[in-house]
Structure formats: C-alpha cells, structure tokens
C-alpha cells in the first residue's frame, strides 16, 4: 500500500469561538473524534490507531492510549506529541502507518478550551524562551520580521497584504461556522485603517485567537469504498523544518523559502503541479504568510506573491481559491487543531459540501506552518 491508497473518510469540526466557557478541552476532543467517526459511518471500536490529544481529566494527560476508554478495544498504533495529533502532519503520519500495515483505522484531532482571555497576545510556546521573550518577541512580531524582509526585498506593499486579509475575511463572513461570521465585508482600506500591531501587520492582517476542536478519520481507500462518503485520498505529503520553534531569530533570508522543498516532494508524489490544484486550505496566521506560501508552493515566482494576490488569484472566483472557509483570519484559530480544520475544509471541498464551494474541486492542498516559518507541512488530497 502507498500513501495514496489511504483516504480521509470522516471529518468533524466543533463550534469555534473566541472563548468556549461552557466547554472543556476533553469534551471538545471527544466530540471531534466521535463526530468524525459518525461522519465516516465507523464505530468507535473499529479505531486501532490514535494520534489525538488527550487533555484529561481521566486517563493520563498527553497519553493517546487514554483513548481506549472511549474507543473500546486495544490500539495497534499511537502517535504522541503536540503537532503529531493535528493537521497535515497528523494525517501524513497516520496515513503512513496505515499504508505500512501498522493499523487500519486512525483518528487525528483534539480540542482546546479555557486557555485564552480577551486581549492576550498568543505565544505558541507555553514556556519562557530565553533569547526571544526578553526582547518582547512573540509570534506576531516574529512573523513580521520575515514579512518585512519580503517587503523590503521585493517591494511587496501593505495594500497587497491587506488584499489577502480582506479576501479571506470576506470568505469567513459568509461562513455560518466562522467566529467572524457576518462581520465585514472588509476592504483593503478597512484593513489598513485597523490598528498597527507590528509593522507591517495591522490588526486585521492577523488571525483571531480562539477555542474549538476538530478531528479526521483515515483508513484504506479499499475499505473506504464501503463507507458513507466518497474517499478523499492522500495523494502526496511532505514536511520541512528550519529549526526549533522560536530558538533562532527568523529572517526572510534564512526561513523565507521554508516549505518549497516540502511542496516539491508532496506535489511530485501526487503527480501534480500547484497550478493544477483546484483549492488551497493553507495556514494564514497573517496576510503575509499566504503571499509567502503562494510562492513556495510554486503558484508564482519568489517575489511575485504581492502582484499575484492583487490580481485576484486567491479569491473564490480566482484561479487558485484559497481558504474559502475564512481560514484562521476569520473562521477559526484554536491553538493546534486549527491545523486539522485545514484538512476538514479541504475534504468538504472535495466532497462538494463546503459552505463556499469551489465548483467541481477534485484536488486540494491543505497546509500548516508556524512559529514564524519554523515548520511547514502539507498534504495533497484528491478524490480517490
């Protein structure tokens, strides 16, 4: 079995909001996993592979085998570690395990509640990072350092950044599940008029922070044929890491092209060029990261991302529709499981059931990244 013989067969996203005071991380994680299984038409006891958060209480915090109390039978395969239980990394590792014959049905996902309050800045790390925090660095200005390098080197403009933010936020405005549902529409000027956080990022250039959960279920394409939905195969995958998150200062010269090699690997495996992919569900912690990813994915040349987005390429009616659900900018950012929501949206698009459906979408790229371009993961998905 190869990676492309494995499919996503079930998806679930919980409610998403800035805070979910009536929920716990465990209840969101359990709703996500059980919801994705119900969506697939699989019973909990059929799961034998788990890469999902176990936040406790009960079981043992951080230990995926705790899921046996929910799922029933013994497990054949687990993967632990924060980023292994979410998104493209979780999906590619679970798919690799299934294709290697280590397990048959795997779940990836989790949930987060009770962590954020209003007005807090979000630093991806929970511990103090010695040579980062002392100078007032956190995720927004660290990403801003990379973006500033691109503006300076290629003449990318704040208006081009704002075009990304307005486009994706306006998608989210039309998504009833989005945290920012009904907000907007936003113009480029609205984005530029919002308060400056760290040059070149205005408030509306940067994603929301919130809570919620999500999960996906994978099994072999062969087994998937008997399930409820058309199987969505893992056509290709890749990851790339530049170093430990936030340890070394990020600059465009050193991390700006992060993801290019991963994209080549994943798209090469899929036998596709980026231009042939119908829809993109990619990490958008800020407007610039979309411009950077359009370039590293190969949709345009390095330095051309600004004019590329200004030409309408990433809009719902554009050549390369990007984040139709509103992405992290307007749909949801919830810690780690926003990564899984990228898979959920790509699968819905390929099933033809998405809220802002791209007509006839047959292939999608779902990608995660983070920590100011310290890591990049993507999967290429397609109808099997």
């Amino acid at each position: 079995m190869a990676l492309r013989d494995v499919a996503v067969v079930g998806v679930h996203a919980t409610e998403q909001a800035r805070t979910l005071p009536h929920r716990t991380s465990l209840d969101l994680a359990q709703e996500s996993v059980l919801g994705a299984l119900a969506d697939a038409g699989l019973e909990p006891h059929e799961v034998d592979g788990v890469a999902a958060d176990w936040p406790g209480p009960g079981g043992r915090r951080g230990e995926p085998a705790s899921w046996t109390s929910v799922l029933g039978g013994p497990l054949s395969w687990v993967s632990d570690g924060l980023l292994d239980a979410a998104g493209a990394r979780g999906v590619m590792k679970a798919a690799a395990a299934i294709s290697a014959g280590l397990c048959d049905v795997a779940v990836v996902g989790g949930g987060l509640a009770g962590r954020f309050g209003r007005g807090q800045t979000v630093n991806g790390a929970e511990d103090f990072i010695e040579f980062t925090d002392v100078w007032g660095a956190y995720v927004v200005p660290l990403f801003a350092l990379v973006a500033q390098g691109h503006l300076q080197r290629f003449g990318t403009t704040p208006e081009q950044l704002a075009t990304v933010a307005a486009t994706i936020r306006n998608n989210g405005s039309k998504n009833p599940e989005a945290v920012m549902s009904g907000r907007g529409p936003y113009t480029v000027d609205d984005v530029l008029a919002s308060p400056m956080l760290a040059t070149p990022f205005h408030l509306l250039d940067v994603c929301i922070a919130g809570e919620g959960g999500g999960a996906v279920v994978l099994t072999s394409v062969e087994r998937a044929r008997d399930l409820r939905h058309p199987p969505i195969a893992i056509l290709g995958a890749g990851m790339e890491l530049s170093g430990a998150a936030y340890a070394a200062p990020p600059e465009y010269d050193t991390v700006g092209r992060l993801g290019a090699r991963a994209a080549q690997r994943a798209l090469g495996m899929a036998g596709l060029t980026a231009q042939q992919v119908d829809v993109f569900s990619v990490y958008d912690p800020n407007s610039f990261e979309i411009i950077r990813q359009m370039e590293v994915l190969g949709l345009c040349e390095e330095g051309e991302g600004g004019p590329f987005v200004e030409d309408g390429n990433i809009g719902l009616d554009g050549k390369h529709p990007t984040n139709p659900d509103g992405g992290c900018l307007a749909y949801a950012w919830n810690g780690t499981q926003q990564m899984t929501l990228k898979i959920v949206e790509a699968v819905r698009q390929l099933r033809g059931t998405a809220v802002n459906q791209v007509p006839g979408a047959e292939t999608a790229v779902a990608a995660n990244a983070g920590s100011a371009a310290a890591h990049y993961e993507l999967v290429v998905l397609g109808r099997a």
Partner: protein
Amino acid sequence: MGRRLPSATELSRGFWDAAAEHRLVIPCCLACEARFFPPERLCPTCGTAGWDYVDTSGAATITSYTVVHRAPSPDFETPYVLAVVALDGGGRMLTNVVGADPAAITTGMPVRVVFLDQPDDRALPVFEPTAIGRPHEPEKE
C-alpha cells in the same frame, strides 16, 4: 522598562554574567572560529563541542526589524523596535533598537550595544544607532 529576565542556563550563564558587567559576549567555536547565537552545546557550523564566550566590539548592523505596537506584557513600553542584528565579527542576534525614533530605523543601519540595567543587578543588551547615540561606554573591568 523592567524586564523579566530568565534564570541563566549552563549554556547562557557566561552571557548574562558578562552582560551584568556591560560586556556583550557570544560563543566562538574553538575548532572553526565561527561565532553563533543563541548558545548551543555544539557549534552549528562544524558540530564540535568546544567553544568559549568571546568579547565582541558591540558594533553591529540591523538586518531585519519590526516596530511593535502591541506588547506581550505591560513590561514593554510601545512602540518598540524588535530587530535582528549582525554583529561585527560574526553572529546574529535578536534584540531591541532603542534611542531613536522607530520611524527612522532602517535595515543596514549601524548600531552598537548598550545595556538596560535591571533591578536585580543584571543587564539586558540592546542596541542603539551609532550615528545618533551617545559615545561608546568604556568597558568595565
């Protein structure tokens, strides 16, 4: 502004001890003489374990910067400049640029180290533009 400084680790103790004396030091590999920052046990250039902290001239050039208007904690007065600087003699570090209008900062700008004394007899190295800064502080010994 008072900053929360971390407890030194076995790798960083030499850095913070020197900073308290207003000296900027960074690791320099004994085998290949590469200078690097932040400190790691093995030299990122050649992979060997032996290095010593060496004094720098304190002169550097801004390679990337952002003007931060929203701080992660009330310890920081906004706006402030977060920057990456390339030290003369090698090595790059994250830092703040102080003593200048943030709007006047550019990449390529020469800067030199100054120290923000903290309440606990420690000090944090930051940089200010060479052209408009005060004369270089004499090194304490």
